[in-house]
């Protein structure tokens, strides 16, 4: 139940007074309530829980995290696989 999944907003519309949208999860498309992400635009990513986007995904932060982690590996390559192991 707690597995929120990131998906791409493909379409935004209104239904019953609520901001709704079509979100693509790697090919699977579902209707999602976008009421809690009022600023989201088409093409952006949201995390979806039980049919509701609970937050927008920050593309910048996602890239930064991967860069940071790649650096850890690069450091390891430089000092060798045994380097620094206590």
């Amino acid at each position, binding site marked *: 139940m*707690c597995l929120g999944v990131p998906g791409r907003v493909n379409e935004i519309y209104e239904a019953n007074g609520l901001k709704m949208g079509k979100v693509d999860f790697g090919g699977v498309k579902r209707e999602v309530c976008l009421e*809690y992400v*009022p600023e989201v635009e088409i093409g952006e*990513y949201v995390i979806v829980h039980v049919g509701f986007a*609970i*937050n927008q995904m920050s593309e910048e932060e996602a890239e930064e*995290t991967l860069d940071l982690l790649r650096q850890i590996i690069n450091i*390891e390559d430089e000092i060798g696989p045994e380097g620094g192991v*206590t």
Partner: protein
Amino acid sequence: MKYVSEYRDADLVKGVLDEICRTVTQPWVVMEICGGQTHSIVRYGIDQLLPSEIELVHGPGCPVCVTPLELIDKAIAIASRPEVIFTSYGDMLRVPGSERDLFSVRASGGDVRVVYSPLDAVKLAQQNPDREVVFFAIGFETTAPPNAMSVSQAQALGLDNFSVLVSEVRVPPAIHAILGSPHNRVQGFLAAGHVCAVMGYWEYPPIAETYNVPIVVTGFEPLDIVRGVLHVVRLLESGEVAVENAYARAVTFEGNKPAQALIERVFETCDRKWRGIGVIPQSGWKLRPEFAAFDAERRFQVADIQAEESPLCIAGLILQGLKKPHDCEAFGRQCTPEHPLGATMVSAEGACAAYYRYGRFTNE
């Protein structure tokens, strides 16, 4: 799939695991408090890939598991009524009550339906004005905004045939209860990423300071989890007490303000009973008095139903990190996912069910 596959990259995970090995110098007990993370940890064997100094213990993070038995009995009593269409997230249907589960209510003619979103339940109420539609509104802070929206939407649409059976629980009071226990073993916490996506993590610094325990907001993919562990181990090794965010792509300090505002409008905090643990003060939400008309417990007069747990089950000790599933005499014998005796076996996200599914029958 974007934002998923990169965070399952085996080389990156291995790199972070190596860094954890280089950092750790002594034993540490770290708790995660999210069923999704528990499942991910056991599924990918992350606990077994970590250096032996680090013990991961699995807190009460599965909402299906901690929903008290009497609430399941209340759901079954309501769902058995002929005028009711009872709607629920799918994973609640096979959770056994004292005598039977919601599946068996359906088998004996009850109208029990699985919905993907609470708004689907509202739609059913619109389409069936001559029936009573009840939604089983369970969960942590992640389901609170959707559940609150269903009530707010039913009110906006003027529906008088919609109600919710509420069992909303909150993570920070549970962390208080665990860290404040005289038997506590937990030295560091991985905070649940999506709970924090909704609520932010402004509630955590006072907890970290009070109990001298670092807390790291952590995501769900394997790379997210090892990164969360790396952060917590660095803090533990340096003796620094801090709250860090290792899931910044989804979580901000303040959290989702519109979601928090609607939770605040529909719900108020209350004491809640957690299955396997007992009552934790101020650990849940209930409907505010102005939304009492949507309270299914009131509408169907089931508030007095009580239930007794199996005396064999040690779920309470497992949820506090004092025991592992395979320490239990009943694990895999009297207690299996098909015939669960208690909280941690009832859902795939529970620690016992995850250990059972991935064959963790011994402490190897």
